[in-house]
């Protein structure tokens, strides 16, 4: 058996699996998005842009996603950066690994249960009840954009901390010493050395969080209470409740296209800031 045959055989199962479970289904979604709704709830194949023409009907979902996803990403960045800086530069090396693991681990646990925890905390008997005790009354937190934002930050903070930590950890600490030896104030060292050198980490973190937020369903469903909904919530409604596959497919295709365009523009901007291609990687 030549090496070539062997490699083909090794790749065959994964390749076939990706074909059947990824490429064919995505193609079906693409084709259906040009179809028409069948009376029975299925799709009549056609070539019409009617579904895309109806997209404005779901404009609110796109608007919410495209405002709360960037705001959520930025808030997560602002909270994550100081923590990543602390872990990479200031933390005791002995504790570093365990502290880092403690940040990453929540990301991999059930987002469902972690969002549920906030229903609990933000609901009537949680934080609002505590505020009541100290005299601030009538605060409503659950089912507001704020609740969704808290859920987003809580859910995606670990994913933001990690890449920033990696880029700060790689940073040569002697640069910082040199800078302060040469009389630079600490904020100046930060602005001129630390921050620019951590841009790749910031870029990766923001992109990861943003991509995941674009397709978010659970957090708005649980903390937004039907008032704050994302494209994901519109998709669940279209496919599982009203069973409008053709229109739903058009919404899904649009979501992916909007995501790809945003990510491409974003990557361009980042390269212009001077990060190299290898640095900005989602893997």
């Amino acid at each position: 058996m030549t090496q070539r045959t062997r490699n083909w055989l090794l790749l065959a199962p994964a390749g076939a699996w990706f074909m059947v479970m990824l490429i064919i289904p995505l193609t079906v979604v693409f084709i259906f998005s040009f179809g028409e709704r069948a009376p029975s709830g299925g799709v009549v194949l056609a070539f019409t842009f009617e579904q895309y023409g109806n997209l404005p009907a779901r404009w609110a979902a796109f608007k919410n996603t495209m405002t709360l996803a960037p705001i959520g990403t930025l808030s997560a960045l602002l909270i994550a950066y100081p923590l990543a800086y602390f872990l990479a530069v200031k933390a005791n090396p002995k504790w570093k690994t365990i502290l880092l693991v403690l940040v990453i681990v929540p990301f991999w646990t059930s987002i469902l249960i972690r969002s549920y925890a906030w229903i609990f905390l933000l609901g009537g008997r949680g934080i609002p009840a505590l505020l009541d005790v100290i005299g601030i009354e009538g605060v409503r937190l659950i089912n507001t954009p704020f609740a969704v934002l808290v859920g987003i930050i809580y859910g995606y903070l670990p994913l933001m901390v990690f890449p920033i930590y990696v880029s700060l950890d790689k940073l040569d600490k002697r640069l910082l010493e040199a800078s302060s030896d040469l009389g630079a104030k600490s904020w100046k060292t930060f602005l001129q050395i630390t921050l620019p050198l951590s841009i790749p980490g910031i870029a990766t973190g923001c992109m990861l969080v943003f991509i995941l937020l674009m397709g978010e369903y659970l957090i708005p469903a649980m903390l937004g209470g039907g008032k704050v909904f994302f494209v994901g919530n519109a998709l669940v409604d279209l496919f599982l409740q009203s069973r409008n596959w053709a229109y739903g497919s058009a919404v899904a295709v649009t979501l992916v296209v909007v995501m790809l365009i945003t990510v491409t523009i974003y990557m361009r901007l980042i390269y212009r800031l001077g990060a190299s291609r290898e640095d900005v990687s989602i893997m």
Partner: protein
Amino acid sequence: MRLYAFCVYLFLYIPIGVIALFSFNAGRHASQMQGFSTKWYGKTLSNPFVMDALETSLIVAFTSALCASVFGTMAAVALQGIRGPLRTAFDMLIYIAVMIPGIVIGIATLIGLVTVFDQLNPLLAALWPEGLNPPKLRMGMGSLIAAHTMFLMALVVIIVRARLVGMDRSLIEASSDLYATPMGTFMQVTLPMIFPAILAGFLLSFTFSFDDFIIAFFVAGSETTLPIYVFSSIRRGVTPEINAIGTMVLSVSLLLLIAAQLLLQRGGHKSK
């Protein structure tokens, strides 16, 4: 600075802690602590719906993590020795699998498989011998395992490949210089070195599949996984039972994850 970090850790762990605390609540109300008791754990564990959902989740997570680890590792090893269009195509597939939002993967799998099944079922019925009940393809555990495996394979390829890249090539060359067969080299040199990464990939895959809600929501058909059960009970209101399930799920995934992290860290240090 240290205080800030401390606050962020509080932010990360207080909600989890609150859930765990209230799961030991003796009272019937989810958000009013009325003494310590483990009765909700007992109630949860004797609820047949929870146990059924748990069983489904465990079967799906184990099978898809296993398939993903095997096929993903095979692909990662093969990709190591390949350049050119095939490599580019595979990189693209992995990139797509990771980039496309989970909800779109769920939708695509649902309508893709339902469309294919609608074509195949009459065919199967026609081909099936007279008098016997023809099998009917439908959404269920099989489609869920297939969908999870697809996504998790991409994850395993990424993890195992990172380990292969960090590996010392000279060991493989030495092994083949010493007339080991390619299979021998793989079993005795490559596999032991990448094994921690494969195991970590398996554990991460298992937790991912076990915790996944959104793909399962579309693909599971009439099956109920544990996250689907929890989601629909939350819809009906917050109960101490959910706290108990949540605490158990979080504890198990925390254990698996810490194991996976340690494996990845240890594996990483050895190569240096």
